[in-house]
């Protein structure tokens, strides 16, 4: 059965087709939720809610976008709604900025270091992403991993495009620091 056929049948309440759609998309939805909230229990609850909303709304899917795109956007909205209910409104996401990154000259100025290119493995990158402050992590996941544009993120988050770009930059700078530290620690243990 193709996905399109499964969607049509799921609209009619076919339980096996619901399960097929779940099997096809569970990993991506769950990974998105987990990367955005950083907690497996929450991510599972959000995955469950995203699929339940999918099944409640599947009759409204018209095929104007790809099904995966539609589901993905729905999952993102579920996560953002959850974060807002937890008391993480957009302004507090702005306040996740570390003050020292706003003040004075940047610490990179005048200090050259080995570039990261070729030295990141995915496990370390995933770990570094998990340890980002929530505000940075959300924007980074949405933009760099999930591929949303800044204007889309701004609309979803209720912030400006400039703020989205600024938060993304701070996230990447923080990741750079974390990855360089991790690399240095590994090099030190080898000696």
């Amino acid at each position, binding site marked *: 059965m193709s996905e399109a056929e499964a969607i049509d049948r799921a609209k009619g309440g076919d339980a096996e087709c619901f*399960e097929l759609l*779940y099997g096809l998309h569970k990993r991506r939805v769950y990974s998105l939720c987990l990367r955005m909230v950083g907690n497996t229990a929450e991510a599972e609850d959000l995955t469950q809610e995203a699929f339940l909303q999918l099944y*409640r709304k599947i009759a409204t899917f018209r095929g104007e976008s790809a099904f995966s795109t539609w589901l993905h956007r729905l999952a993102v909205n579920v996560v953002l709604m959850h974060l807002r209910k937890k008391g993480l409104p957009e302004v507090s996401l702005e306040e996740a900025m570390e003050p020292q990154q706003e003040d004075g*000259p940047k610490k990179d100025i005048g200090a050259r270091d080995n570039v990261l290119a070729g030295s990141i493995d995915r496990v370390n990158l995933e770990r570094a992403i998990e340890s980002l402050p929530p505000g940075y992590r959300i924007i980074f996941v949405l933009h760099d*991993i999930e591929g949303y544009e800044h204007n889309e993120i701004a609309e979803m988050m209720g912030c400006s495009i400039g703020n989205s770009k600024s938060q993304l930059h701070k996230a*990447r700078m923080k990741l*750079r620091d974390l990855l360089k530290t991790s690399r240095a620690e590994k090099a030190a243990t080898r000696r």
Partner: protein
Amino acid sequence: MTCAEFQKVLPYIIETGGSEEEESHLASCPVCSDLVQDLRYIAEQAKLLLPMREPSPQVWDNIQDSLEREGLVKTGRSKGKILGL
């Protein structure tokens, strides 16, 4: 243009490119050039991250329960095996 001035506008130009002065600084400054290279590399590697994790089987069980409770499914409860997967 100083490095501080360049790095202040970097968030807004890293994807779209900057002014002639900003691009000139980038081309001539190894520190800022290394920084931009690192940030772009991180972004590129992030795009390659695959959905690696699976939710526990309990998630589907909970979904099934809710679907039946809400009357969204017409047939009886399936036994949890994903068809053909």
